[in-house]
């Protein structure tokens, strides 16, 4: 048995005024092993040492306690720290004990026997310490149960609720907050202002500026310190009540204890705590008073319409104030369960009458009249005088704390946990309903289902992200091994509060994030559009690389557990593409760098709600029209095409012309492959379309240069004529293919009409040789494809000179396309048209759950590539052939898989294709810049009409020269040159029709002859890959080096 003697602070002040109670000595007997005792003492010592810093604050804090004045001993028996510190004699006037000191306290002092209560408390405080050093003896509780004396009430509330310790922690927080935000305005301050004049208006203190001013300051200060809660009606009433008994800063801290701990979620923006506790209360009624409950249910009476305000404003508005304060006395001491106990007691006492109540109204009036007579005798007709003296309120207290003593905090916690889910769901449904309904006119463009999905996705992403961030943060903290001792005050309700932090961010819990940043937006998109899923996950699936990981981490399980993906488990990692950034910026109409649900819905409505293709096209165009001048420049055109590629790289949604080829497939593969075939042909055709798109964009682009302006009308008129040839051309196949060809022929037609073009031809004959049209890919028509099945399908290569296109890359000739041009170019191609008509809008899959979308993506892309047997040539492979080697459509998947290099599997193939394509495109851009610099440098030294317009392409020539060093290279020969010495992408891409012909073994789709700027590829095995690259390169490569008129024709191969 060990003992520990502690001398507390009070009594040690030499400047005592004679009333000193002397030193307070606490003797603690420790029963336990020596070790345990030592541990305790060590802990105590540590605590004391930490508390030393607070001694300074303590003075100020304690000075506001009425008990100090009451006992008028100088002493602060503060935290039991016995050294240092003198008392600064401060017992001048009494400290602020609320408005009641000025405007009188409610109730009749004599009836309340305030004086005798005060005497008892004085005694107690002298014996057992006061404020911070008070020791709670059993009498402490009894004294509180009978009601606190007015002047001590505030202080004891502060003490029992624990808010005193908050105040001790940051004594100046209240005044600091006020001065920091002085003059500040917010929604909360506006709302507060509205209610100031209507908070306990019957109390004289609140008819004065003094009282109103105090109320305003406390509410405003709190709203700034807890902006998530801000201000909630009912707080005004509670605070007004508190202010009658305590100072402003006391009330301020007590309010925060109320909001954070005692009434968790009551005043939050969704008031879920209020609703939850109503549910809990109802379930307690059902449990303890089943008969009454049955009756209420039967008469369809909703109990909460009566009981909700009891809880929300702590009975202050329901009972006469004097009684409400009595309830509060116990409430702060014993916690939230008191509210339930009192509520149950009210119903129990009025049970008989309530059983007669047939509707809400009757219920209410019974209780109202009950409250009005709380001061009357509970047993007016009793013989027993003592019994007669018992007031209804006393009866209520007895019933509450005797009969419902079984209702404990753990009962409440348990019930809260049980009902929380349902209550939150209710709130969330309500919020969703309301929010969707109020989304404004744009939302009407989307279906109700779509809106619901958008809502769910939006908040789902926000919620999940927040959870994840928190988990990651906690993980980090845990790792940091920050083992700080947390002082948790022994407060009821703490458990529930802790519980909450886990679920932070849920809509129903109140202020949840409502804005989505760009990362969130990416995740949001990835959940519904497959193009928004990244191709190169930064944290690859562990399964795929599990073996390697084992070696790195030794313990794979551990490593798995340690890393939390920032995108969540099992979620696809979103891509990060310029298109997405543009979309984000476009939707971010408030320029907040974050999207609200409203932004997202409006944005989505414009993408998906467009029922006509024209607005889709305009929308897309505007996305790239950065300055809103109706023009998209060269850079923009390239970006546009990149975006088209980006969006299509996982295949297109919707109704692109299907082609079916099932020959050679086993039954099992049938379905998937069917899909795959379609996809492939569509994909490739789409590539071609995009390729053609770029070409045409440049063809029809308007020069920015003023002197070139006169060109435009002509071109436009030609554009019109294009349609003729198109129809007449009668090229086999249909749709996109024709259009491609058409584009070319129109280009050719355009050339002669342009005077400058003629000049070019004349003056730049040599260059012309080099000019080469990229092989315009034209896929087999679906019909053909179908016809020939797995075998060979007719192939058709269009090749034409499009000198004009070269201009596109001439940095000296800035150009742009306008919306009409863009539209025209889009509409000129069936696939692109379809893309804007349906694929693009449909690529946002609202009704699909993200899981479905993700799996769809994976499976189909696998099917696609495997069934086609696409292998991937590694970039360094250096295959020289420009061709597609797809031996047969029906090559089974395993083969393809085997041929795919790298461990990434087929998915990697796809990824690489796309990234290659994009890389090429960006390389083109880079080259262009280089070229420009180069050209500027060499401008003088170069002949050949660098300033020629439209159809000219001298800078091309320049590049070609620079890069190749020799112009002699022609055809195949040149290709070699390209690979070796020429880093110049622009000049480096050539393909010979002839060679193509020889090499092409493909049965499907199109070929674009490409050269990889790294010099390794002229045609990989992978047709798609090639095609993609070709696309990028196309831009830069418009030179037909043969320059022969023969090549100006569209050449078709059939094999």
């Amino acid at each position, binding site marked *: 048995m060990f003992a520990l003697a502690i001398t507390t602070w009070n009594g040690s002040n030499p400047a005592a005024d004679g009333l000193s109670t002397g030193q307070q000595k606490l003797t603690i007997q420790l029963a336990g092993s020596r070790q345990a005792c030592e541990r305790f003492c060590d802990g105590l010592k540590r605590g004391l040492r930490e508390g030393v810093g607070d001694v300074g604050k303590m003075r100020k804090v304690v000075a506001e306690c009425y008990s100090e004045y009451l006992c008028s001993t100088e002493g602060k028996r503060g935290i039991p720290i016995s050294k240092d510190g003198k008392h600064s004699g401060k017992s001048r006037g009494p400290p602020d004990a609320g408005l009641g000191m000025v405007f*009188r*306290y*409610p*109730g009749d002092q004599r009836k309340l026997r305030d004086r005798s209560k005060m005497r008892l408390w004085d005694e107690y405080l002298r014996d057992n310490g006061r404020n911070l050093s008070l020791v709670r003896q059993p009498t402490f509780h009894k004294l509180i149960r009978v009601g606190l004396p007015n002047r001590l009430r505030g202080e004891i509330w502060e003490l029992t609720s624990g808010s005193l310790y908050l105040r001790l922690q940051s004594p100046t927080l209240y005044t600091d907050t006020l001065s920091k935000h002085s003059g500040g305005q917010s929604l909360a301050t506006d*709302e507060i202002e*509205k*209610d100031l*004049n*209507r*908070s*306990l*208006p*019957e*109390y004289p203190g609140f008819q004065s500026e003094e009282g109103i001013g105090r109320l305003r300051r406390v509410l405003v200060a709190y709203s700034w310190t807890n902006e998530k809660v801000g201000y*909630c*009606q*009912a707080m*005004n*009433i509670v605070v007004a009540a508190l202010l009658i008994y305590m100072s402003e800063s006391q009330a301020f801290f007590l309010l925060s204890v109320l909001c954070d701990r005692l009434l968790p979620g009551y*005043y*939050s*923006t*969704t*008031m879920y705590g*209020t*609703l939850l506790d109503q549910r809990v209360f109802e379930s307690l009624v059902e449990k303890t008073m089943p008969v009454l409950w049955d009756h209420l249910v039967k008469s*369809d009476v*909703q109990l*909460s*319409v*009566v009981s*909700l*305000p009891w809880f*929300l*404003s702590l009975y202050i*508005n*329901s*009972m*006469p*104030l*004097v*009684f409400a304060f009595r309830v509060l006395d116990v409430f702060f001491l014993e916690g939230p369960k008191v509210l339930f106990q009192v509520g149950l007691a009210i119903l129990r006492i009025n049970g008989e009458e309530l059983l007669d109540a047939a*509707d*809400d*109204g009757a219920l*209410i*009036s019974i*209780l*109202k009249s009950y*409250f*009005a007579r709380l*001061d009357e005798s509970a047993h007016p007709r009793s013989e027993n005088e003592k019994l007669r003296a018992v007031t209804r309120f006393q009866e209520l207290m007895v019933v509450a704390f005797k009969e419902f003593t079984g209702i404990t905090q753990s009962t409440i916690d348990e019930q809260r946990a049980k009902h929380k889910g349902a209550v939150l769901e209710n*709130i969330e449904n*309500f*919020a969703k*309903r*309301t929010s969707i*309904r*109020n989304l404004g006119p744009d939302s009407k463009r989307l279906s109700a289902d779509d809106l619901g999905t958008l809502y769910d996705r939006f908040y789902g992403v926000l919620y999940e992200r927040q959870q994840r961030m928190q988990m990651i943060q906690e993980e980090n903290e845990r790792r940091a091994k920050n083992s700080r001792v947390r002082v948790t005050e022994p407060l009821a309700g703490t458990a529930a509060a802790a519980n909450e932090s886990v679920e932070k961010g849920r809509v129903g819990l109140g202020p949840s994030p409502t804005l989505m940043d760009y990362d969130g937006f990416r995740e949001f998109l990835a959940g519904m559009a497959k193009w928004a899923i990244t191709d190169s996950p930064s944290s690859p699936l562990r399964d795929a690389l599990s073996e390697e990981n084992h070696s790195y981490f030794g313990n794979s399980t551990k490593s798995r557990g340690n890393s939390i993906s920032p995108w969540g488990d099992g979620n696809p990692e979103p891509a990060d593409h310029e298109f997405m950034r543009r979309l984000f910026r476009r939707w971010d109409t408030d320029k907040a760098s974050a999207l609200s649900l409203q932004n997202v819905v409006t944005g989505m409505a414009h993408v998906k709600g467009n029922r006509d293709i024209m607005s889709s096209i305009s929308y897309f165009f505007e996305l790239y029209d950065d300055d809103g001048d109706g023009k998209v420049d060269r850079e923009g055109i390239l970006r546009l095409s990149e975006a088209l590629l980006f969006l299509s790289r996982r295949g297109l949604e919707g109704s692109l012309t299907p082609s079916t080829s099932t020959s050679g497939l086993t039954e099992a593969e049938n379905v998937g492959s069917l899909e795959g075939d379609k996809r492939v042909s569509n994909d490739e055709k789409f590539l071609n379309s995009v390729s053609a798109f770029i070409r045409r964009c440049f063809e029809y682009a308007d020069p920015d240069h003023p002197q070139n302006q006169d060109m435009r009308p002509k071109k436009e008129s030609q554009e019109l004529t294009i349609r003729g040839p198109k129809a007449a051309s009668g090229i086999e196949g249909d749709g996109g293919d024709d259009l491609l060809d058409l584009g070319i022929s129109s280009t050719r037609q355009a050339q002669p009409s342009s005077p400058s073009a003629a000049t070019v031809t004349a003056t730049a004959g040599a260059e012309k040789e080099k000019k080469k049209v990229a092989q315009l890919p034209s896929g087999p028509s679906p019909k053909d494809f179908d016809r020939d099945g797995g075998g060979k399908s007719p192939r058709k290569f269009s090749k034409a000179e499009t000198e004009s296109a070269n201009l596109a890359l001439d940095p000296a000739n800035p150009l742009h396309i306008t919306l009409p041009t863009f539209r025209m170019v889009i509409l000129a191609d069936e696939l692109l048209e379809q893309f804007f008509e349906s694929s693009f809008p449909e690529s946002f899959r609202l009704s699909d759950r993200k899981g479905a979308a993700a799996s769809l993506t994976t499976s189909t892309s696998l099917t696609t590539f495997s069934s086609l047997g696409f292998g991937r040539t590694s970039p360094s492979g250096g295959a020289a052939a420009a061709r597609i080697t797809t031996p047969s459509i029906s090559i089974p998947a395993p083969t393809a898989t085997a041929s795919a290099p790298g461990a990434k599997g087929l998915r990697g193939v796809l990824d690489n294709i796309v990234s290659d394509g994009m890389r090429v495109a960006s390389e083109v851009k880079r080259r262009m810049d280089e070229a420009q610099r180069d050209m500027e440098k060499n401008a003088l030294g170069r002949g050949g009409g660098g300033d020629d317009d439209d159809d000219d392409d001298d800078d091309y020539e320049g590049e070609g020269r620079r890069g190749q060093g020799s112009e002699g290279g022609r055809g195949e020969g040149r290709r070699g040159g390209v690979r070796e010495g020429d880093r110049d992408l622009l000049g480096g891409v050539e393909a010979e029709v002839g060679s193509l012909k020889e090499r092409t073994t493909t049965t499907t789709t199109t070929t674009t002859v490409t050269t990889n700027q790294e010099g390794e590829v002229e045609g990989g095995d992978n047709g798609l890959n090639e095609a993609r690259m070709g696309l990028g390169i196309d831009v830069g490569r418009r030179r037909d080096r043969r320059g022969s008129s023969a090549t100006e024709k569209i050449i078709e191969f059939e094999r």
Partner: protein
Amino acid sequence: MSESTGASAPKLSSSVKLVLLGEAAVGKSSLVLRFVNNDFQENKEPTIGDTAAFLTQKCSLPTRTIKFEIWDTAGQERFASLAPMYYRNAQSALVVYDLTKPTSLTKAKHWVAELQRQASPGIVIALVGNKLDLANDFNSGGGVGASGSNGIDSEGLNTEDEENSGDARKISTAEARSYAEEEGLLFFETSAKTGTNVSEVFTAIANAIPESTLKGTRGPGGTSQSGLGGRGDDTSRVNLTGPRRDVGAKEGCAC
């Protein structure tokens, strides 16, 4: 005044649940207080759904007596999720906005939408622009005092149509009226402070409640018509003088 509250013995008497909705501080409680108590308090406590938010008042019609059970709700946004609790089973609703405050009409529209979709199907909704006393055109409106001595009926409203955009008025009568017509709502502009049109609102609602008080399926559009029919009758006036048992408990402070 023409009839005393209790004198409705031979008539059919039915109770009608009415809920008040609207932004904070538009005057919901004041309207009720005026209607029930013929009283106006400058500083009415905010309604936080406490028991005083439930009041009753009888309204005598030629053929029947309607006992309104009035549920007043808190207007602050975050209380919105509590509203379903109050408009549950309501046969009528008063959606109040402050005609000096545009946002309050927006909020009122939200409430109308909510009610139309979530409340009982046949609910009669009245849109009420309160604080008419703050509008310049108020005095031209016929000067209906709190006494309501000369049975002003809804036609009295027409005088307000020629609104000359009053001082504080921010929402024109025409704008609100056209919205109300679109949605099939009863429409009034009132002043709880002076009493203008207050009883008319309740009378109109009483008239619009379908005969089969319980779950009448007549839509609000139709009922607004029927409401017009009965209002010219002096006897349809609401008794504003009867003592109300439910009033006053709110200020239950015993100090």
